[in-house]
């Protein structure tokens, strides 16, 4: 029980980071982006490439920061991966989404996002192979936190959770304390009115993709660190991330953060009752439950 809760919070951290970016895009550009989870894959694999490169260049970077399996090179690679993923998100928007958007049709965007997801996922599969990858071959030993009730936690997991909370805090401060954050929230609230007040909409859209992509990269890397990397990780994560955004209420960043935790914990606890084969269905059940009880999510507003 306690173990499930701990595992759920950990999965939840990854989902929260993914859902924050998704909810921002869904709110501002008004379409369900089914390609968002592929940004996690891009980030995770970009970090893998640069991690290997740095280790090759300078072996001391490859030393594990005990007790974590995390290495100095992966930390540097993570920063680069965030930039690459943010840039990829902007590029995808330029190449596809912006042009479909200009032709109109919110639902055409949803179709396009599925097409983009298929392309990205399978190109990554072609480049890196269909097998799974790990950042570190070393085995991460779990630490026994408590024997009764039994609770095992890996140091990496603690790091992931702490880092997620720090990132969310930074995001919160940026959104609530800076002019930039104010502008972002204004655009999310009412794009036309924000433009009237001199906020450059196009630049804000770029910024949203950069932030969303950066957070997605971190989420992907954390997923890779605590599970493994695979070209189809986006396919497996897209529904839980959507569930997190819907639970929180679309457009609500704090809702998405909390929604991720709720979906993570609920999925983990559900496995106490359901056979583990059914775990991919759990996010769907959560979505249905939310739509039944509180269709606009915990923090969402009614919007047509």
């Amino acid at each position: 029980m306690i173990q499930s809760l701990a595992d759920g919070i950990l999965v939840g951290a990854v989902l929260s980071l993914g859902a924050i970016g998704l909810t921002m895009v869904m709110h501002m550009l008004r379409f369900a982006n089914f390609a968002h989870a592929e940004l996690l894959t891009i980030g995770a694999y970009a970090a893998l490439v640069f991690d290997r490169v740095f280790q090759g260049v300078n072996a001391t970077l490859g030393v594990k920061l005990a007790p974590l399996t995390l290495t100095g090179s992966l930390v540097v690679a993570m920063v680069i991966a965030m930039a690459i993923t943010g840039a990829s998100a902007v590029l995808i928007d330029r190449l596809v989404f912006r042009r479909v958007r200009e032709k109109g049709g919110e639902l055409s965007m949803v179709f396009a996002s599925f097409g983009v997801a298929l392309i990205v996922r399978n190109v990554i599969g072609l480049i890196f192979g269909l097998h799974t990858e790990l950042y570190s071959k070393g085995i991460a030993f779990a630490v026994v936190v408590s024997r009764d009730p039994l609770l095992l936690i890996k140091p990496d997991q603690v790091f992931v959770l702490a880092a997620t909370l720090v990132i969310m805090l930074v995001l919160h401060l940026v959104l609530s304390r800076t002019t930039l954050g104010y502008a972002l929230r204004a655009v999310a609230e009412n794009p036309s009115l924000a433009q009237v007040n001199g906020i450059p909409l196009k630049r804000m859209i770029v910024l949203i993709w950069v932030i969303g992509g950066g957070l997605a990269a971190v989420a992907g890397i954390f997923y890779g660190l605590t599970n493994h990397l695979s070209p189809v990780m986006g396919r497996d994560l897209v529904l839980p991330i959507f569930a997190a955004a819907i639970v929180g209420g679309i457009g609500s960043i704090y809702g998405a953060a909390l929604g991720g935790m709720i979906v993570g914990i609920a999925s983990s606890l559900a496995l106490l009752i359901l056979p583990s084969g059914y775990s991919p269905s759990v996010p769907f059940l959560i979505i249905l439950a939310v739509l039944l009880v509180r269709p606009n999510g915990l923090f969402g507003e009614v919007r047509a």
Partner: protein
Amino acid sequence: MIGVLSYLVFFATLASILAIAVLGLNLQWGNTGLFNGGVAAFFGAGAYVTLILGGQPQDEHLGDFALPYLLALAGGIAAAALLAWIVGRLTLKLRHDYLAIATFGVAVAFENVMRNAEWLTGGAKGLRGFERPLRDLLGDGLTYNIAFLTVVLVALVLVYGVLQRLAASPFGRLLRAIREDEDAARSLGKMPARIRLTAFVTGSGIMGLAGGLYGSFYAFVSPQDVLPTLTFQIWAMLIVGGAGNNRGAIAGAFLIWGAWTASGWALSRFAPVEAQLYTGSIQFILIGLVIVGMLLWRPQGLFPERLVVSQSGKPGH
């Protein structure tokens, strides 16, 4: 010669079955503007329920009903429609993209349950024990397949005819009105949520019919048949053919199914052995490119919807 003929019959049967599903999607997306991200689930519900209802008694899973074929097929259609009704009731009043997410979720959950619920569906091994109807009379060879193709074509023509009539009827006009401007339709006293639900359930029922025919054709269905791939293929067919145009939808189904099987054949024939593992990936990239490319350069499809003025202003018409 016989080989070519039997392959053509096989190809035409599958393409026509998929064309029926594309027609169902066209009613939802083309005529009403509803996004269905879970075509595979409704198709699969039709296939599974038809085979369970029409199948012989089995030890490993459910399926001892042995109902007459048409009754079993009707059950499959009803199951797909029921699934659509449940999802539609929950989502059609909300933002448009909720339907996209919920239907996508249905497809994920459906495939997942079919794969795991062995007592119900045989799990990953698939559902067996179904006898193709009239097998005693027609045997298993080409004769049977030609007869089956005829049945599928009749079903396709029937669905096409009904949908054409529907599109030209006041109801069809109402669907387009809701698609174009929901508020205006509501201001005229129409009930968009209810109309949309009707269109969604009907379209999904048609997909269920396609699924039921597909299951009967193979006398077998497994979770491999209801993967999201199917949904993407059917979308590509509609987008290429032209959303809103029933003839375009059928043409798109034959074109894309032809391109899919041809690319699969070419990759397996000419690609180096070590690349064989990746043929699936290459085909997915191609289908992604088709969807994105069509949306960017020809969003109206190869055969665009012809907008008609259903009642001219002049008296006497």
